Each structure stands twice: as C-alpha cells, then as structure tokens.
C-alpha cells in the first residue's frame, strides 16, 4: 500500500515540500542543540521543562483522542464512523511519533535513552509511560494496517485483530492517565498535585483529538474528494462539545479549590497564569494573554458548535470553531499547564520561561514531521477508499 504515497496531484507534493522545509529547519536547529547542549533552549534551573515536554503532553492527548472514533465504532457498532475510524488510528500514530521525538529532543543525553530499557525502574512513571506509548503506537500501526488491507481486498478483517482493537481502547486511556501521573504524583508542585489532572487531561484530549479530525476531514473533502459523512461529523462535534465543557468544568474546580480555600500553594500557579503573580514588587504575567485567549477560544468554539444553525449551515464556520477549540486546548495544556507548574519554584522564587528561536525551530520541525507522516498515512487511507469506490 505504500506505493500510494508516490502518486499525487501537484498540491500534494507542494504540501509535502512545504512540510519538508520546516523539517529541514528543525533538523538544523536540533543539530545545533545537540552540539551545544540544552542551553540552546530557554529552559533554566528553575523552569527545567519547556516547550518540548509541554508539546509531548498535549500530543499524547491528541493520540488518545483517536479512541473517540474507535470506541463507538467497534464497541457500539456505530456504523457511520466506518469511513473515518482509520483517520483516528492514523492520527494516533503520527501523534505518538511526535511525542517520542519531543522526548528525544528534550533529553540532555539522547544517546543514553535506552538506559530506560536497560535499567528498568518500575517506581518511575516514565517507565510506564514508555511502555504504554510504545504499546499504543504498535497497536495502532497493527490495527490500522490490517483493517485497511482487508478493506482494500474487500474482505472482512481477520477475527484476531479485534482482540488488538479492543486492547487499544484501554491503552488510549492509559497513555494519557500515565502522562498525567508524571505530574500529579510529584510532591511540592502544587499546581500539578491534583487528583483531577488525569480526568482533565482525558477530557481535553477527547475534545482536541476529534476537533483535529473534523478539521482534517473538512480539508480532505475539498482537496482529496473524501467525504467523512455529515452524520459522522455531527457525532464528533457532540463528543467535542461535551468533552470541552467537562474540561472547562474541571478548570473551574481548580479555581474553586484554590481561591475558596485560600491555600497559597493552590492559588499561585492559577494567579500566575490568569492574572499575573506579584513577587518582590514585580508582576510576572507572560502567560496571561495566552490563557485568556485560550478561555475565549474554548468558550467561543463551544458556543459556535452548540448552535445548530451555525454548525450545520456553514463548513467554514465549523472548521473555524474546530480550529479555535484545538488552539484553545493547545494553549491550556500545551503551554500553560507545564510552564505554570514551575511557578513559583520550590524556594518561592519566580523565573519566567521564554523559548528561544532555536527551540521554536526544533518544535516546529517536529510538528512538521508529524504532519508529514500524517499526510502520507492519510494519502494511503484515502487512496484505498477511492480504489474501493471505483
């Protein structure tokens, strides 16, 4: 099936070249970082994780979001997802590859990465994260490939594959739960030390993943003549609305606990994110505009999606709403959540984090790599669909 990636319209090649350009920029930036050290980034002794780990965290969610297609289709036999379930599985593959690349980019000694396997340490959450991420990647490659091959031959997929399809559902939940546990089990980081982190991660994942899939299927409809079907899109939008609302609800609960209890540790990071935190006469508020944009985007997009007239009438507005929701969730989890955990530091001092240009280059390069892989995978999926139709 791989040969399908080698034939395409000029637009397809231009898009790949466009992504390839950013990948090249990313590679050069990474080479610079590799030769000099992580000092090329804006991270510091106080904010020791930055964009790389925050992108990783967000993308684990995108990968887990694919399960919102797999679960209704295979468990509830929800037929209208038939055409797009493969999109969810392939999105998960691309997202996990990005996650692994971001982890590698973040390591101070990348050549020693295998030490995690050579010296397995079951008390570290990173050990489990490695297992579930790689397991989920494997399951999605396996299930996606076997089912697509069967579809192409117009036969039923082999029975044994369903075992792996069902297995991939708890794996999807586990990747994001374990990723939340990287944070919420750390004493002394009050913003992260909250039992609601895992559910909140899952809620935002189940909104962000489907939002991206709807957005992509709207694009595929125009550029690749691939229609996901109105009913499928509508169902996904419903899932997105509920998940995004749950995410907002959880954020609200964090606010309540922090501000009503008045416990400084529970308040500081929220104060920093949304209002600016004062310390020794200086107000630190780098992220405030981002966080309010995020809130406005999330609420605005939910309102747009929930209004039938807007949603059903106009694909452009539907796409815009999905983009807003995705961006809002990205700011919430892919920026604010990780950075604010380090504010204030354990000695109650504040250091703000501003990524460097080189760091942004690596980050964009990895995103481009992910979309490159996604494009190839979707090209295969769409071509197979077209082949069947002929």
């Amino acid at each position, binding site marked *: 099936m791989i040969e399908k990636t080698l034939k395409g319209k000029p637009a397809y090649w231009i898009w790949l070249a466009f992504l390839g350009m950013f990948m090249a920029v990313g590679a050069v930036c990474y080479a610079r970082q590799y030769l000099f050290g992580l000092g090329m980034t804006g991270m*510091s002794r106080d904010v020791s994780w930055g964009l790389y780990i925050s992108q990783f965290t967000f993308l684990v969610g995108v990968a887990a979001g694919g399960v919102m297609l797999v679960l209704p289709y295979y468990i509830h036999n929800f037929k209208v997802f038939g055409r797009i379930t493969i999109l969810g599985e392939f999105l998960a593959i691309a997202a996990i590859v990005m996650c692994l690349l971001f982890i590698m980019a973040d390591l*101070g000694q990348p050549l020693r990465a295998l030490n995690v396997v050579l010296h397995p340490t079951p008390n570290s959450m990173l050990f489990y994260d490695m297992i579930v991420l790689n397991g989920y990647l494997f399951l999605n490659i396996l299930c996606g490939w076997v089912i697509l091959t069967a579809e192409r031959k117009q036969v039923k997929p082999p029975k044994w594959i369903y075992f792996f399809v069902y297995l991939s559902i708890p794996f999807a939940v586990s990747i994001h739960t374990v990723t939340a546990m990287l944070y919420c089990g750390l004493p002394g980081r009050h913003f992260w030390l909250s039992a609601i982190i895992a559910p909140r991660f899952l809620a935002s994942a189940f909104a962000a993943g489907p939002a991206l899939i709807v957005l992509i299927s709207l694009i595929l409809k125009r550029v690749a003549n691939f229609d996901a079907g109105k009913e499928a899109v509508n169902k996904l939008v419903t899932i997105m609305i509920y998940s995004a609302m749950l995410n907002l609800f959880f954020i609200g609960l964090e606010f309540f606990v922090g501000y009503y209890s008045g416990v400084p540790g529970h308040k500081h990071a929220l104060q920093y994110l949304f209002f600016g935190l004062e310390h020794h006469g200086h107000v630190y508020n780098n992220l405030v505009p981002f966080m309010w944009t995020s809130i406005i985007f999330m609420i605005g997009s939910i309102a747009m999606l929930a209004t039938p007239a807007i949603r059903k009438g106009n694909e452009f507005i539907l796409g815009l709403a999905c983009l807003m929701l995705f961006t809002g969730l990205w700011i919430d989890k892919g920026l604010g959540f990780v950075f604010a955990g380090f504010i204030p530091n354990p000695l109650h001092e504040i250091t703000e984090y501003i990524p460097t240009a080189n760091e942004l280059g690596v980050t964009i390069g990895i995103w481009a790599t992910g979309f490159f892989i996604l494009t190839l995978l979707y090209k295969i999926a769409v071509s197979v669909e077209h082949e069947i139709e002929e």
Partner: protein
Amino acid sequence: MDNQRRKFLKIAGASALAGIGAPTLVKLTAGDALAAAKAPADGHGAAAKDHGPEVPAGIRLAMVIDMRVIAAKPHLLDKAITACNEVHNIPDFGGDRKNEIKWLWKASFEAVLTDKSYTRLSKMVQNTDFPVLCNHCENPPCVRACPTKATFKLEKNGIVAMDYHRCIGCRFCMAACPYGARSFNWQDPRPFVKKYNNDFPTRMRGVVEKCNFCSERLALGQEPACVEACEGAITFGDINDPHSEISKVLDKEFTIQRKPTLGTNPSVFYIV
C-alpha cells in the same frame, strides 16, 4: 532477631563513641557504613522493618545546621560554599540564573523554610542567609521519579547519590525534588570551572547533579567539606546511632526540617 539488631546498633554506637574528634568520628561512621552494607543480608534489616518505621535500622547520615553560629559569623557560610564548590569542581556562571549549578548555596529564611510562619520574623532570621543543599531525604521523590536509577539511595548510609554516566538528562528528578536541590548542565560546565580538583570528576553537559554529602571524602575518612570549613556550625553524623555527636545535638536542641508535610523526611536539620 531482635538481639541481632541490638548487637548491630551497639557496634555502630561503640565505634561512634570511640571517635571523639570529629574527623575520627566520621571516619568510623563511614567505615561502619561500608560494614552495614552487608548487614541487611543477615536478615535483621527485614526484621527491623516489621517492627515499624520508628525502629532505626542501619546508618542514616544527617546534618544539623546551627543558624545561631552562622548568624554570628556569616562568613562561615561563604567559606563552606567556596569549599564545596572547589572540592566538587562546580562551574561558576557568574550569577546567571539559567545555567547556575548549585550544591550548597544561601537563601533567605522565607525561601528555605517556605512552610514556616513568617508573619513576624526575628531580626536574626531576617538578616541571616540560610544554607540550602540536598536534604538526602529518607523518602526521596527524586529517586522515585528517576527512570534509570541514575539517582538512587545508598541503603548503607542513607545518602541519595547519583551516577552521572547513567543519567539521560530527562530532568524528571528536578521536577520531583520539592527543595530545588538539583541542577542541570545546560552546557559543558568544564570551561567554567575555575580551579580544578583532580580528585573529583567533572561532569559532562546534559546531566543533573547535586550535593552528594561528600561521599568521596567520607570514604577517605574525612568529613564533608562544608562541615570542615564552617568550624562547628554544622554537625554531621549518624542519627540512628543514639550516642553519636549529632544525636546528642538533636536530643538537646529543637530543630526544624524543610517542608516536613511532604513526607520526604529530610536529613538536614536547622537550629534557628
């Protein structure tokens, strides 16, 4: 089994008693620490566990910092910091907060003892810088978080140690440490080491490091560099040995630890 445990404690106590001068004390304690490494294999270690955590088993090295002495002679702390930096080849980035590597440093009372009340602080506390270093926690979150065992606890003496050659630089331990005790080499530190000490390894870029309670000096029978440099302001020794000098200080003085509510049980105590 209980008998065996008592015998072990007696040995640890006897050797501590034998050493009256501080260096000898540490020498014997450190020697004991090596002997104790084998002890749990005899079975008494496990027995001690069954009796609950209150029963001290093995050696637990710790430090008591007397802030009254440091308040009176603040230069002692500077001396201790310089000693630690020189012994351990700590790079000097000239106060650059991003890159700085700190094993032992100073900070205000509010910064060090964040969960103590500071509505009204005594003048002494307000005007004195407190030393900060790794607490060699009894229940260290950094060890729990490390995915490669590059950070680990030495059961023989309670020191939380590091293997710079195994560390992958994921910085999970830095996020996990509630005391900000860990530093990362964001770039090659070697050009920034002012005076080389050939007896201690330098680190490469991309790994984490922190105070090691001077394990390398203990092995030679010397006390930690900072303890030696600050002329009695810091007492060092085995707190599981009731007859050690440090136990006597702890019996006599009221001490506090950093963030006791987190359950890490630090091995660094402060007398304020």
